[in-house]
């Protein structure tokens, strides 16, 4: 029932956006297209692929947070700041701790050794299986 205006154009978020939405949308498409291309085309070696698309994903997240969600530390839009305070620790916890867990997991599980080496998959599997029980 918070009901100040029926006209969406008059919402402050929209008025303050000044084109940022379009930029964010196009950038999002480009970044996703790029990562899709890297993955589908097997352009890079497995480990490098992982790193590359993670970096692209990070960039995409950053662009969305700044241009779509307007996370910043302005005093006038206090809720943006609150959202930022929520976002940073969550990001560190979820992504950081997950990466920590995955780092070192392959060695213990012998799963998918291909990710560790840059050779084509079949050869790598044999090689990886041999040095896996580390």
């Amino acid at each position, binding site marked *: *029932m*918070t*009901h100040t205006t*029926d006209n*969406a154009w008059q919402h402050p978020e929209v008025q303050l956006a000044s084109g940022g939405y379009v930029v964010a949308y196009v950038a999002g498409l480009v970044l996703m297209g790029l990562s899709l291309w890297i993955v589908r085309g097997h352009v890079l070696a*497995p480990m490098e692929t992982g790193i590359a698309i993670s970096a692209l994903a990070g960039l995409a997240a950053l662009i969305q947070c700044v241009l779509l969600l307007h996370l910043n530390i302005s005093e006038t839009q206090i*809720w943006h700041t609150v959202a930022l305070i*929520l976002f940073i*620790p*969550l990001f560190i*916890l*979820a992504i950081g*701790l*997950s990466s*920590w*867990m*995955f*780092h*070192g*997991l392959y060695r*213990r*599980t012998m*799963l*998918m050794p*291909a*990710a560790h080496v840059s050779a084509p998959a079949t050869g790598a599997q044999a090689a990886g299986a041999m040095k896996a029980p580390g």
Partner: protein
Amino acid sequence: MLVHIDGPWSPLLGRLALSEIPYKNPILVGTFVFAMLVGVVLVGLATYLGAWRTLWRDWLTSVDHKKIGIMYILIGLVMLFRGFIDAVMMRTQQALAVGPRSSGYLHALHGYLTPYHFGQIYTAHGTIMILFAATPLLVGIMNILVPLQIGARDMAYPYLNAVSLWLTAAGAALVMASLFIGNFAHAGWFGIVPVMELPYSPGVGVDYWMWAFQLSSIGTTLGGINLLATIVKMRAPGMTWGRLPIFTWASLSANLISLTTFPVLTVTLALLALDRYVGTHFYTAGLGGNLMLYNDLFWIWGHPEVYFVILPAFGMISEIIPTFSEKPLFGYLGMVLASLGIAGVSWGVWLHHFFTMAAAPAVNAFFSITTMVVGIPTGVKVFNWAFTMFRGRLRFELPMMWASAALFLLLVGGLTGMMNAFATNDYMVHNSVFVVAHFHMMLLLIVYAIFGGVNYWFPKVFGFRLEQRYGKMFFWLFTAGTAVVFIPMFTLGFMGMTRRLDYVAFPQWGPLLDIEVAGIAIYALSVVFLLAQLYVSFRDRAQNRAGLDAWETSRNLEWMTHSPVPFYNFAVTPEIHARDERAWRVEHGVDTVRPERYEDIHMPRNTALPLGLGLLSFGLAFGLVWRIWWLASVCAAMIVVLIVIRSFDNDTDYTIPAQDVERMERDIRDVPSGRPVTGDVAGGVPAFREGV
């Protein structure tokens, strides 16, 4: 692009065929007949009572937060019943299928359920109890209470609220549909990888599980946004953060969790959907996929979810105990910080659900420690409750009985949780029924808090108190059932019994399993007394009319409006002076003061669109489950169309003129004691809905 599916498929019906209807299974046929009978009786009753109009106008199209709350609770109760039946089947199966010489019935080698059916039952039980029973019950209670506790007229987004409700309902309906059309997943409630990948689960079961989960997850995310916005933006004048009722604080922290973690679940399930529908390899064991990715993502949501359900339960306990100790809550600030602290810690512990899955020792140690840290805020809460009761004038009425028994369950559940939290210990008990017993203590705590809360706030919502004699018998039988089922289960856990056994190879476990069946029988018996309690309460409702403050010693804002609450909540938005506003007004002798003049009230208008969106999303999910592409596309398109239509609708609210408010308020009879009692209201929520 779509993956190839083995077996028949037709453009019209997708994978659906007559052979998918389990009409040869006597248990399912019986269930079907039962469901149809209940349906016919309900439809007949509605027709006989001429209730269709009311049903449509006052319930199905309602955006009133109290009615939406009640409908959430009804969904929760129906699903609780379904989940309970699943539990009965699992207990009896395990007791029957002990040892190689145990006999088999109904095509089962041992017991009466084949592994195929047993797998579906434990999956359905877990999914239902957590997502379609506990969550809707709690969301319903938050829906009813939060606006009342902060002096608002409704939620911040009443329309969105109805959408959340009907999405949850669609999810629940999907789970139910899987009983009679096709089958359900057998990969556990949390989805065991790679079992729920297409090569291992080629049927529709996992698809049912996945889409039902997805619908309820979206519904809960939207609900969380709504409750947060309500709490932040809709507080009555004077309701500072330091005066916010404790249940509202608990809801705030719970919904912070739902806002931040349910989206992770949405993505997790979406990736699974990609694996199963277009053949990606996110969670497969080869081709670049990674099983652990699923576990990681699922539990990033999964653990916070368990705190999402426990925080409102803690909130209810924190409201009930002061009322029946006739004292203010001890350590308000500590309570608030503890709730937020639990929410905060819950984001950093998820890995304790897969300690045994080869993370580095340092990683396990880290998550062990964070898991144990949860004990600190939880301990703060327990001590605050204890100090609230200390030197209080304790009255053990029904809500208080449920709330104080919940504390014992918290003790057992919390301590066993701590035992699991040692990664070293967890290597012993992981995947055993010890873990099952642990989390049932926790979830039963929630159930106890819910029963306490329902008994406590029932008079506020319906205008009459629930009867206590049968209620107490229900309480004691339920508690006996809890003890008789779960003490043997802990014991079996220590004896090494693993989870999800459809056949029990060790005869020495038999006797304890038999005791568990006795416990389940006690539970079943207790339900009879619950029904008796409800029946007697309804029959004698005239004697049990409640005034504003049903318990005479309540403290919060919600007890300052009439019982049952009029659809506009408060005739005049109250001005808040203190933390326990009602207690403050009683103390200052101003609790019965009537407002000098009334003002226009601005209310949201009913709409049938949310119901339509719910139906369409059911259709969409059903179409996706059976791969009936035309159905899915039509429903998806219609959903978009409805959303567009709604966004052009500017006539979404109306105003009740001040005179009407005054007239309606005058119709509420005042009883000499100064406790206004609603007139001859039939005991339904809304009482006098007019002027729509």
